[in-house]
C-alpha cells in the first residue's frame, strides 16, 4: 500500500510499483482509506508518502506497525522507490 494525499503523486507511485510484475500496489490518500483497506486485505508493506499531518502519521504507524512493515517513502517518484521496497521486503 502506498499512502500519499496528493492524487497525482500517488498515481505516479502506484504506476511505478505496478510496472514490476512481482509487485501490486493499492493507493490510499487518507488515513480513513488506509484503515478501510487494511480491514479488507493484508499487505506486505506500507509506504508512507507525503501529506498526512504528524498526528495522522502517528495514528497510521500505530495502526499498521502491529501487522505490517512500514517505510517512510521519500522522493515522490522513481528515484528511491525501488531501493525502499527492496530493503523492506524479504528476498
Amino acid at each position, binding site marked *: 500500500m502506498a499512502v*500519499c*494525499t*496528493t492524487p*497525482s*503523486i500517488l498515481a*505516479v507511485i502506484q504506476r511505478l510499483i505496478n510496472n514490476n510484475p512481482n509487485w501490486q500496489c493499492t493507493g490510499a490518500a487518507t488515513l480513513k482509506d488506509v484503515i478501510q483497506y487494511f480491514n479488507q486485505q493484508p499487505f506486505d508493506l506500507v509506504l508512507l*508518502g*507525503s*501529506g*498526512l*499531518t504528524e498526528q495522522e*502519521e502517528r495514528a497510521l504507524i500505530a495502526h499498521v506497525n502491529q501487522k505490517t512493515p512500514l*517505510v*517512510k*517513502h*521519500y*522522493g*515522490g*517518484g*522513481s*528515484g*528511491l522507490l*525501488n*531501493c525502499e521496497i*527492496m*530493503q523492506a521486503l524479504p528476498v
Partner: protein
Amino acid sequence: MAQYVFHPAATRGFADHGWLKSYQTFSFAGYYNPQRINFGALRVLNDDIVSGGGGFGEHPHDNMEIISIPLEGELKHRDSMENAAVIKPGEIQVMSAGTGIYHTEFNKDKNKAVKFLQIWLYPNKRNVQPRYNQINIDNNIKNVLHQILSPDPMDEGVWIHQDAWFHKGDITAGNTVAYQIKKEGNGVYVFVISGSLIVDDHQLDTRDGLGVWDTRNITITASTDAVVLLMDVPMEVDF
C-alpha cells in the same frame, strides 16, 4: 577515532538512457546496492550528463531537499510553483520538495551536453511547504572552502531543511586546507569534482568520494589543481 568510507568513481552505479548518462554514488532508480544506500542524511549524489536538447519531463518530488550544481552547460528549470529559471556553472539551485512539487529540467543547449550534480538530502522535517531558490556562488578566491549551503536562511549560500553545510573549494596543487565539521554528530562527504587530492592520508581522484565521521577536523591537500565539494551532514537520520 575518525572513520572513513571510500567510494571510487568507477564503483558508482551507471544508467545510460541515451539522452541521459547518470553516475550514481548511492542506490537510485534501477541501481540497487545494499552497501551503498546513504551517508547519513546524504541520500543521492548523481553525476548527470544530459545530451543536447534532452531533459527530464515533468515529474514529482516530495519530502527531499534537492540541490543541483551545474558543472558545464546550462539547465532550464520549470516547476509547479511557477518558477522558471536557467542555472549555469557558478550557481546552485535548491528545491525543498516538502508536500510535493512537479518540475522539468532540460538542457538549454540543443547541441552540447550539460553536466551537473544532483544531490538529495533527507529533510529534518517532513511535509514542509515546497520552496525553490537559486543563487550565484561563483568565487575566484582559491585555496578557500566557500560555504554554498547551510540550514540558516541568514547565512552564506542557499538554505535547506537539514542541519547540513556544503562547501566548495578550488585548491591549487600543493596547497592544504582544513575543514572543521560544523555540528556534533555530523560527518563530511568529500566529493572530488576534478583533480587529485589527499584527505587525511586517503588519495582521491576525479569523481571519487570519501565519507569521514567520528572526528571534528579533516585536512585536504591538493596533489594537482583540484575542485572539491564538501557535504557536512547528520550521520543519524530519523526515518
